C-alpha cells in the first residue's frame, strides 16, 4: 500500500519536467517550436516563468520564450575559451574558418536588412556587396562567390542558419547552388534572427580594438557600486562557470571569487543540482559538476570509437607521466598503441602518418573537457584527469575478460 498522494506525484512530475526543460536549454540555448526540438520547446514553454526566474537570479541570462522559439541568452563567464567553435552542420562537424565566420556575419547583416524571403543567389549578391567595404577588404578578405569553394563556404553558412532556424528552406537545395545549377529560396524567421546575438551591447557600439577587450565590452554588465551587486555578480559568474564548464579549477579564480565560492559552495552547487540534476564533484583542486545521466555535454570521455579510444589511451599515458608531455612523444606513443590496439581502429587511423591527427583530436577533446592544457609544444595534465581509473583496468581485465565475446564482436563490427 503506497501512501504517495496525488499532490506529491504531481510535484515530482513537475520537478522532473522542469529539470528536463532546464537541461534542454543548457544543451541547446535556442530551441524551436518546429522540428526535432519541438518536445523540449514545449517543456520549456510550460515552465518558462520558473526557468526565467532561476536563470535571471542565478546566472543573469535572459530567457525569451514566444510561440516560435525559446532562447536562453547565454554569456560565458570565461571568455577565453576557444573550444566551442561554430561547426559545420554535417557529419564532419568541422569548425568554422575565418572565411566562414565572416560570411556568416555578412549573411546575417543582409538578412537583417532584408525581407521575409530570400533566395541564396540574392543573399550571395548582397554578401559580395557588403564584403567590398574598405575596412573589410583591408583585412584581406575578398568574396566573389564565383568559385565553387566559396559557394561551398556560403552553403555551409546557410546550413548552419537552417539548423538554428533562422532560415527555412522553401524550394531548391544548396548542392544545386554550389554546383552552379540552381538557386534556393528561404523563409527568414525574423524572430529567431532577432534573438541571435546574445551580447549585452551591440557590437557596433563597442570601440575597443583588441579581441579580448572587445569580448569584455560585449559582455560588460552595469557598473557594480555596492557589495550586494558585487556579490550577485560573483554568484552569477560562478554559477555560469559551473553550469557551462566541465571543471572549475580554483587556481583560475580571483581571491575574491575564491573566497565567495568557499563560503557559498554548498548553496551554489545545491541550487544547480536541484535544477539540473548535475552533482558536484568537489576536490582539493576545484569543482566539477558531473552528470549522472551522461547526457548534458557535447564532448564525452570515455567514448567509444577510434578517437574516443585513442583519447582514453593517451589520457592513461598522460596520467602516468604526471607532467608535461611533448606532442612528439604523444605521437610516438600513438604509434606504439596502434601496434597493440590498431586492429580495433578505423582504417584511416592505422595508416602511417595518422598519428599527428589522432593526437590532435585526442588533445583537443581532453582540453575541451578541462582535463589537460597546452603550453606551446607540450600537453600538461590537469588534476581532474586523475578521476579516471585508467590504470586499474589492467587489474580488472582478467576477471571480466573471460565473460566477454570479443573476437566475435570484432568480426561483427569491422572498422
Amino acid at each position, binding site marked *: 500500500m503506497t501512501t504517495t498522494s496525488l499532490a506529491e506525484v504531481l510535484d515530482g512530475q513537475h520537478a522532473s519536467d522542469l529539470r528536463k526543460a532546464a537541461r534542454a536549454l543548457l544543451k541547446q540555448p535556442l530551441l524551436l517550436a518546429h522540428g526535432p526540438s519541438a518536445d523540449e520547446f514545449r517543456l520549456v514553454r510550460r515552465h518558462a516563468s520558473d526557468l526565467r526566474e532561476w536563470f535571471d537570479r542565478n546566472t543573469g541570462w535572459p530567457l525569451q520564450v514566444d510561440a516560435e522559439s525559446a532562447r536562453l541568452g547565454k554569456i560565458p563567464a570565461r571568455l577565453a575559451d576557444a573550444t566551442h567553435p561554430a561547426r559545420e552542420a554535417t557529419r564532419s562537424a568541422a569548425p568554422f574558418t575565418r572565411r566562414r565566420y565572416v560570411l556568416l556575419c555578412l549573411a546575417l547583416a543582409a538578412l537583417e536588412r532584408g525581407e521575409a524571403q530570400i533566395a541564396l543567389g540574392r543573399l550571395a549578391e548582397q554578401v559580395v556587396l557588403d564584403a567590398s567595404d574598405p575596412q573589410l577588404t583591408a583585412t584581406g578578405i575578398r568574396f566573389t562567390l564565383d568559385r565553387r569553394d566559396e559557394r561551398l563556404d556560403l552553403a555551409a553558412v546557410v546550413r548552419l542558419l537552417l539548423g538554428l532556424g533562422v532560415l527555412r528552406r522553401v524550394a531548391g537545395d544548396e548542392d544545386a547552388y554550389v554546383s552552379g545549377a540552381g538557386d534556393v529560396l528561404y523563409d527568414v524567421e525574423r524572430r529567431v534572427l532577432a534573438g541571435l546575438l546574445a551580447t549585452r551591447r551591440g557590437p557596433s557600439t563597442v570601440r575597443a580594438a583588441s579581441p579580448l577587450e572587445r569580448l569584455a565590452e560585449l559582455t560588460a554588465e552595469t557598473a557594480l557600486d555596492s557589495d550586494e551587486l558585487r556579490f550577485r555578480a560573483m554568484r552569477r559568474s560562478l554559477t555560469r562557470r559551473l553550469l557551462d564548464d566541465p571543471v572549475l579549477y580554483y587556481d583560475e579564480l580571483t581571491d575574491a571569487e575564491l573566497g565567495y565560492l568557499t563560503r557559498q559552495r554548498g548553496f551554489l552547487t545545491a541550487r544547480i543540482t536541484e535544477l539540473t540534476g548535475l552533482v558536484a564533484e568537489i576536490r582539493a583542486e576545484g569543482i566539477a559538476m558531473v552528470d549522472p545521466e551522461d547526457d548534458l555535454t557535447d564532448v564525452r570521455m570515455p567514448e*567509444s570509437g577510434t578517437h574516443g579510444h585513442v583519447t582514453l589511451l593517451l589520457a592513461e599515458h598522460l596520467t602516468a607521466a604526471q607532467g608535461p608531455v611533448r606532442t612528439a612523444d604523444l605521437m610516438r606513443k600513438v604509434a606504439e598503441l596502434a601496434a597493440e590496439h590498431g586492429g580495433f581502429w578505423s582504417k584511416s587511423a592505422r595508416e602511417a602518418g595518422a598519428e599527428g591527427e589522432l593526437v590532435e583530436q585526442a588533445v583537443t577533446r581532453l582540453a575541451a573537457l578541462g582535463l589537460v592544457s597546452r603550453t606551446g609544444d607540450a600537453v600538461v595534465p590537469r588534476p581532474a584527469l586523475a578521476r579516471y581509473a585508467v590504470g586499474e583496468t589492467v587489474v580488472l581485465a582478467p576477471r571480466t575478460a573471460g565473460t566477454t565475446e570479443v573476437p566475435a*564482436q570484432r568480426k561483427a563490427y569491422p572498422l
Partner: protein
Amino acid sequence: MDMNAPRPEGVTDGYGPFAHLTAPNVLLYRSVMRAFLAAKERFAVHLRPEDVHAALPAGTRPGGVDAVAKALDALVAWGNLRADPDTGRVTAVEDFYRKRFIYQLTREGEAAEKALAAYDEALGMRGALQAVALHDIVTQLRALLVLAAEEEPDPAKTHLALDGLASRFAALADNARAFMGSLQRTIDLHDVAEDVFLAYKDQLIQYLERFIQDLITLGGRIARLILELEDGRRIQPLLRSAAAREAADATPQEAAHAEQAAYERWAGRWAGLTAWFLSRDGRESQSRLLRGRALGAIPQLLAVVRSLNERRAGRSDRSADFRTLALWFAEAPDDDARHQLWRTAFGLYPARHLTLDAETHAARLARPEPAATPWAGAEPLRISPQLRRTGSYERRGKPRKVEDRQEARRLLAQTAAKQAAETAAARARLVTGGITRLSGLGELDPASFRFFLQLLGDALATWRPGMKHTTATSNDGAMEIRLTALPDGSTTEVRTPEGIFRGPDHAIEIVDLTAGTEGGDGR
C-alpha cells in the same frame, strides 16, 4: 479684369466642371465651391463675392475680394457657377460702375462637387463598423413584422420602412468593406507610422471586440427576424406593395413593367440582406465572414505589435552589429580568437560536463569524499576494461531466442472456441420464440443478461416520445429485438445471479437472425 458676361451653359461641353481640378489655383477653387455647397445647405442660393470671401477658410482666403471675384468668374467660365447681374443697391460710386454679379451653383457644378465629395469620402474613409446600423436594421425589421401582421399594410409606411432598411443596410455593407480594407492597410503597416499604429491599436482592438459582440448578438436577432418575415411568405406582399408605390410615378407607357422591375429590385435587395445575415445553400453569410475577419484581425494586430517591439528590441542597428562582427572575425589574429568571439557573441554553445556512471554515483552517495581530497587521491571513475582494450563497450546479454508460440496459439484458439460457444448459448437462451413479456424471461445467467442489456439498450436508443413500438438490431446484426410498451404501466424484474433488474414491463420478442447458419458452423 474684363470678365465677360456669363456664358451660356452650353460651354460646359464634356467635363468642364472638373477643369478647375487641374488649374493652378485648385485649392482656392475647391474651397470656393465648398462655400457654395455649404451655403446651399443653409438654403442660401445666391452669394456675392464678399460673402464667398468671408466664407473661405483662413488658410485659403486670398488678401482681397478681387481675387475671389476672379476665381468666381473662372468657375463661371468652366460652368460650375452661374453669374447674374447684381441689382442690389450700392453705396459707393465706384461700386456702381463696376460690373457686379451674384453667383449661384449650376447643376453641373453641383454634380461635380458631389462626385468630388464622394471621391474624397471613399478615399479618406477609414472605415468604421457601425453597431448603430445593426440596431437600426433590427428596428426596421420589427416595423416590417408589425406591418406584415396587418390585413392591408399601409403602402407608404411599408415603402418607408423598406427604404430605411435598404439604406441602413447599404451603409453598413459599404462601411464593412471600407473597414476591412483599412484594417488590412493598418495590419500591413503600409503607409502607417509606428506611433500612429500604437496609438490606434488599443482603440481598434476595443472597437473590434465591441463590434464582434454586437454582430453576434444583433446578427442572431436579425437573422431570426428575417426568418420570421420569410416564414409564410409574409415579406413578398410587403415588397410588392413597396414596388407598386414606386411604380405609381412611372409614365403610362412604362407602367406595365415598372412595377415588375421595381419588385425585382426590392427582391434583390432583400436577398442581399438575407445573404448577409443567414448562411444558406452552403455559402457563409457575410456577417459570419465579417466576424471571422474581425476576430482574425486581433491576433494579426498583436503580431504587428510584436514585430514592432522586435524592431525596437535591438538597441543598436543589428545589421551594423553583424557587419562589425564580420570585421572583427576578419581582424582576429587566429582561429582561437574567432572561436572565442563566436562563443561570446552568439552564446549558442552547449553546456559541457564530465559524466558519472551509476555505480560510482551510488558509491559516492554512500561514502562521500571530503572536499579537500585531491582528484588523484579520490576514488576514481572506473573505465570498462573492454572499452579500454577495444574502444567499444561490451554488449551485455544474449540474443533473444526465437520463441515457440505453438502453445500460446493453441490456448488462444481454445479460448476463442469456448467464448463462441458461450455466446451462442447465451443467444439461444434469449430467443423468445414469439411475443412474451419481460417478466416472462425468468432468471438470466450473466452472459445472457449482458446480451439482453445490450439489446435492450439498442432498442431504447431508438425510442422516441410517443412511441409504442420499436424494433432494433444488435450491433453485430445477429439478433433482433421487438419491443412494445404495455398500457397497464406495470413494472417487472429480471433476476440474475448478480442482482435484480427492475423496470416498466414491456411486451418483447427476440429473434436470432443467424438461426440456421449458427448450427452448421460446427464451432
